[in-house]
């Protein structure tokens, strides 16, 4: 019999409903793997033995009572940016190192209602600000494919945990690539839905016009199942979209003959030939399934990094103003007065990268600079968004690499923030335009995974998951397990 950790969610779901295995058995199997491997990977900030087993018992009771929901008893991990009632929710920060959330994020609550069991909270870049998981107060996560390398970020813990089969899937968030980039670097599947598709309530805010919750899974098929339970209108999120949630699983097998793929010209400029070849290999698979490929150009896309590094820090400086050392979060010792309390609590509670972004944001929003930086960036954002809109008149999806290189070594890019920021050059565009995008593993370079990115028009998640699933039906890159984690 295949070991439980090797099964996909779809397979686990079948076994649970056939009652050949119990949810408690499944949870125990993953908790044991988490205990065994977390010391090496540091993928989890919290491992929730008690909560997981009690939720698994409840799931078994539901199954026993004849309930048949496909997610009842399925264990997953949550990125530690999602508030979980009664459990620590740290956001990877010293500021929230002891914060116990009094409520559940909508995502957590919906998955719980669907019968999902919470295994633990995954490590992440502090406040989701980073592309390597090195800014976490709880230390860096290591890439299961090579522990000397980063897993990507900010959802590095989620990606490493799924890649190492410590959890069948994990929630994640994506503000500038934080789902897709770590998914690519760890050889797993990651989907960032359309802005507004998944509720942001209880998801600690970084940049509110860009943040979107999503998933890291082993396959598009698993992502379809979970996204269906997570997505949907939430009156508690003022930018949540009132549209019905389609059955993402129902259209996975739709033939893609005639699918019009746009090859993103700007994404291949400067890309290493071997990396570009992996992407072209992936596109060949789709062509063999009947897809038609043409080159498309998004001339303003190269400006997405500078646009993002105005808009995101501006929104971050505003969102993180709530951390004042008064109501919750870190407070400095013996403050002299109220101002001293604010500045020292924040100075100590936030790490170097978070402070850098708060200051960048404060600067671009300050009197005299607002028009030159913030409004200018918002105008360029409109140009980038219009580029995508034009492209989608000609093609159904656009495809390119997820990242400029495979996983880099720990410490390789920490000296210069701009070098680190350029890692997100291919992922940021989708956030600025609010578009859904996913990354699937499409090969390796020097033994390290490479990701293929598919971006579609607003609310085209069914098409993206369909294309990814058809691709994964023809390839086995998503089934590869990092050495030592089989």
């Amino acid at each position: 019999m295949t070991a439980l950790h090797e099964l996909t969610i779809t397979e686990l779901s079948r076994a649970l409903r056939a009652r050949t295995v119990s949810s408690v058995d499944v949870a125990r199997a993953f908790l044991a793997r988490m205990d065994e491997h977390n010391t090496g990977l540091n993928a989890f900030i919290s491992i929730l033995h008690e909560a997981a087993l009690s939720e698994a018992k409840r799931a078994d009771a539901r199954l026993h009572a004849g309930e048949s929901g496909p997610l009842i008893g399925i264990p997953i991990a949550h990125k530690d940016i999602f508030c979980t009632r009664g459990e620590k929710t740290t956001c990877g920060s010293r500021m929230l190192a002891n914060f116990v959330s009094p409520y559940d994020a909508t995502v957590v609550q919906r998955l719980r209602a669907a019968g999902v069991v919470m295994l633990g909270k995954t490590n992440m870049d502090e406040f989701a600000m980073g592309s390597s998981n090195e800014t976490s107060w709880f230390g860096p996560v290591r890439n299961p494919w090579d522990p000397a390398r980063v897993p990507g970020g900010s959802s590095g813990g989620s990606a490493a945990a799924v890649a190492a089969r410590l959890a069948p899937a994990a929630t994640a968030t994506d503000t500038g690539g934080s789902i897709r980039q770590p998914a690519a670097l760890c050889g797993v599947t990651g989907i960032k839905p359309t802005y507004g598709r998944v509720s942001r309530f209880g998801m600690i805010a970084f940049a509110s016009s860009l943040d979107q919750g999503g998933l890291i899974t082993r396959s598009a098929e698993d992502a379809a199942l979970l996204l269906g339970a997570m997505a949907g209108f939430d009156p508690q999120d003022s930018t949540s979209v009132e549209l019905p949630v389609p059955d993402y699983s129902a259209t996975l097998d739709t033939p893609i003959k005639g699918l019009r793929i746009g090859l993103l010209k700007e994404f291949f400029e400067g890309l290493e030939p071997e990396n570009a070849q992996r992407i072209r290999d992936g596109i060949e698979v789709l062509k063999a399934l009947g897809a038609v490929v043409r080159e498309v150009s998004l001339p303003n896309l190269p400006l997405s990094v500078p646009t993002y590094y105005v808009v995101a820090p501006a929104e971050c400086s505003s969102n993180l103003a709530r951390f004042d050392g008064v109501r919750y979060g870190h407070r400095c010792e013996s403050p002299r007065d109220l101002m001293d309390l604010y500045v020292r609590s924040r100075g100590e509670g936030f790490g170097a990268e978070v402070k850098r972004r708060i200051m960048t944001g404060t600067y671009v929003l300050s009197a005299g600079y607002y028009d030159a930086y913030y409004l200018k960036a918002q105008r360029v954002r409109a140009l980038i968004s219009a580029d995508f809109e034009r492209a989608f008149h000609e093609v159904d999806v656009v495809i390119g690499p997820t990242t400029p290189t495979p996983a880099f070594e720990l410490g390789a890019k920490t000296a210069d923030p701009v070098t680190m920021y350029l890692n997100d050059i291919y992922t940021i565009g989708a956030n600025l335009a609010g578009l859904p995008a996913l990354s699937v593993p499409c090969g390796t370079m020097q033994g390290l995974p490479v990701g293929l990115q598919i971006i579609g028009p607003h609310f085209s998640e069914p098409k993206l998951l369909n294309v990814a699933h058809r691709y994964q039906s023809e390839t086995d890159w998503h089934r590869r397990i990092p050495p030592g984690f089989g």
Partner: protein
Amino acid sequence: MSLNRQDIEKIAQLARLALSESEVSAYVESLTRILAMVGELERADTSHIEPMAHPLPGQRQRLRTDEITATDQHALYQQNAPQVQAGLYLVPRVIE
């Protein structure tokens, strides 16, 4: 655009962040680099382009009826507070 120590100290003060001497030096350098990178935006011709504040155009802020929807949970919320007394958050004395 090059920043100096006074600029960084001013920004830190606006952002309510206490910085050490060495942090100030580090941020002089890194914020200058970031602003240089951001300066590329000037290349784009954005005359007659409306600023885009939100990724889904046409979305409006919803209003709801003015009803009580939340219950009083201050005791639960204050479990995370650094210092409380009699249901109140404590801060250093503000008025002498």
